[in-house]
């Protein structure tokens, strides 16, 4: 097999673009983890719910802006309901209990979505999916570039929101100790609604971007699994970490795939490589690249 360096460069760019899209999914997890110390098992389903609502409304002939607005309204309602029904009664419980609650939430959202919109796959076409251009020997797909730009903007916006406002410290406080946060006057319930809404909107963007690529179907919820190694690499509490983690996962899985094929003639490495990488990270740097340091007193 002949070694072609351009193939690797192409794979690197493809990987980075895909990586930004992984970051989008991971971002939703990070937001909720930052604000409640809880891994939200239902994040993937929220991606699906948002995308399916949006695409179904479009297919009913709704205007794109109206459909988007209604989808966001649905996500706000979802956040309000989750806060009232799930989170509020569980204030001050251990993170594992909240985690279990999000597993339940996952199935409720999935079932509810299926009940309302059915389980058929839909295609979501935003512009020409095959439009592309070339720079030298490299190919770029327009849609993927747009998606990357949208993701980058979203991330920059969120990073500013959390670092240039006081909400950042309040969020960390809430994630650390509910009771103590309340005692210093941090309105837990408002914070939760805001954060779940923002996480919902991030899920919506991720759903549209990925839905445009893979079609809007129930397997979209499985994207959450791809976000896991991203989170472990970048750190569960870091927004920049989600981005860098996504880029590393995206680029390294593509390169690893090519390399394994060139060297050993085997394929399919792409599918497990990110998890392998995550495992190595867990052994040597369990807090991830940018996560909060883990403090232990012996």
């Amino acid at each position, binding site marked *: 097999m002949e070694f072609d360096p351009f193939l690797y460069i192409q794979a690197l760019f493809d990987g980075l673009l895909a990586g930004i899209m992984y970051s989008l999914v991971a971002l939703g997890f990070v937001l909720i983890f930052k604000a409640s110390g809880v891994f939200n098992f239902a994040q993937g389903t929220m991606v699906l719910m948002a995308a399916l609502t949006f695409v179904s409304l479009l297919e009913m002939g709704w205007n794109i802006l109206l459909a988007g607005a209604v989808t966001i309204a649905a996500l706000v309602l979802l956040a309000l309901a989750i806060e009232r029904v799930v989170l509020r009664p569980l204030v001050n419980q251990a993170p594992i209990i909240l985690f279990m609650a999000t597993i339940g939430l996952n199935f409720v959202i999935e079932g509810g979505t299926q009940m309302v919109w059915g389980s058929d796959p839909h295609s979501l076409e935003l512009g020409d999916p095959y439009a592309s251009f070339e720079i030298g020997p490299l190919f770029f797909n327009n849609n993927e570039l747009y998606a990357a730009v949208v993701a980058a903007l979203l991330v920059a916006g969120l990073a500013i*929101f959390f670092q*240039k*406002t*006081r*909400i950042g*410290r*309040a969020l*960390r*406080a809430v994630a*650390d*100790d509910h*009771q*103590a*946060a*309340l*005692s*210093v*006057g*941090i*309105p*837990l*319930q*408002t*914070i939760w609604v*805001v954060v779940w809404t923002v996480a919902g909107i991030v899920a919506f963007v991720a759903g549209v971007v990925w839905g445009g690529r893979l079609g809007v179907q129930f397997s979209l919820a499985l994207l959450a699994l791809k976000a896991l190694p991203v989170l472990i690499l970048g750190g569960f509490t870091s927004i920049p970490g989600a981005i860098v983690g996504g880029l590393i996962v995206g680029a390294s899985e593509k390169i690893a795939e090519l390399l394994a094929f060139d060297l050993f003639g085997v394929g399919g490495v792409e599918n497990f490589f990110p998890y392998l990488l995550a495992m190595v990270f867990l052994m040597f740097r369990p807090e991830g690249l940018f996560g*909060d*340091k883990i*403090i*232990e*007193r012996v």
Partner: protein
Amino acid sequence: MADEAGKHIGEVLLSASNISLSFGAVHALTDVSADIREHEILAIIGPNGAGKTSLLNCINGVYHPQKGTITFEGEPRADLAPSEIARQGIARTFQNVALFKGMTTLDNIMTGRNTRLGGNFLKQALYWGSYQRDELEHRVLVEKIIDFLEIQAIRKVPVGRLPYGMQKRVELGRALAAEPRLLLLDEPMAGMNVEEKEDMSRFVLDVNDEFGTTIALIEHDMGVVMDISDRVIVLDYGRKIADGTPDEVRANQAVIDAYLGVSH
């Protein structure tokens, strides 16, 4: 202490009248009435399970008593959330240190300023024009508290790494940062050695003295209680059995019975 020059105990700041709190068949508090007066140090004592923490929890809104009313600054209070009560000027510490463990001492105490930011939460989140300036103003006061509590050396240390006694001190600092009208301390000296207890006693007295802060505290160490408090109330099985100066309480037969048991 009470008759010391310069200290004058004022009007009733907070008054609980006939409050009852139960969890199912367990009566945590039965018909308890208690006043907390301005500028005083009030100790709440009683055997384990007497309802001391439940009383504090009712005062800062963690629990809402089924019966009775709580009057703060002369006005009967509706059932409010702890965060709303914090905004009214009631700060507290917890029996089992409730700090933000991953955050530094400085950041922990800064969160105490949260009630002093003004405006509602969303407004704060969306408006960052004066963020840097505000932050500086709050830092000045927080640094004063850090000096006052003599914790300069651990300013940048994540509190999860600090020894227990220090964590209790940081927690006191966070409560002070809110510049509270009423400070509730739940066992501020539990698990401390003699030296740390002396330090903490001194801080409690200094806070009361220098800032005129009203303090209600729960404490098991009778030596400390008798030394620093102006008044003591005693709870037993959720009922108030005594209320008076340390000397009066010490001589009270019901209190002695509650602590030592009665022969039947």
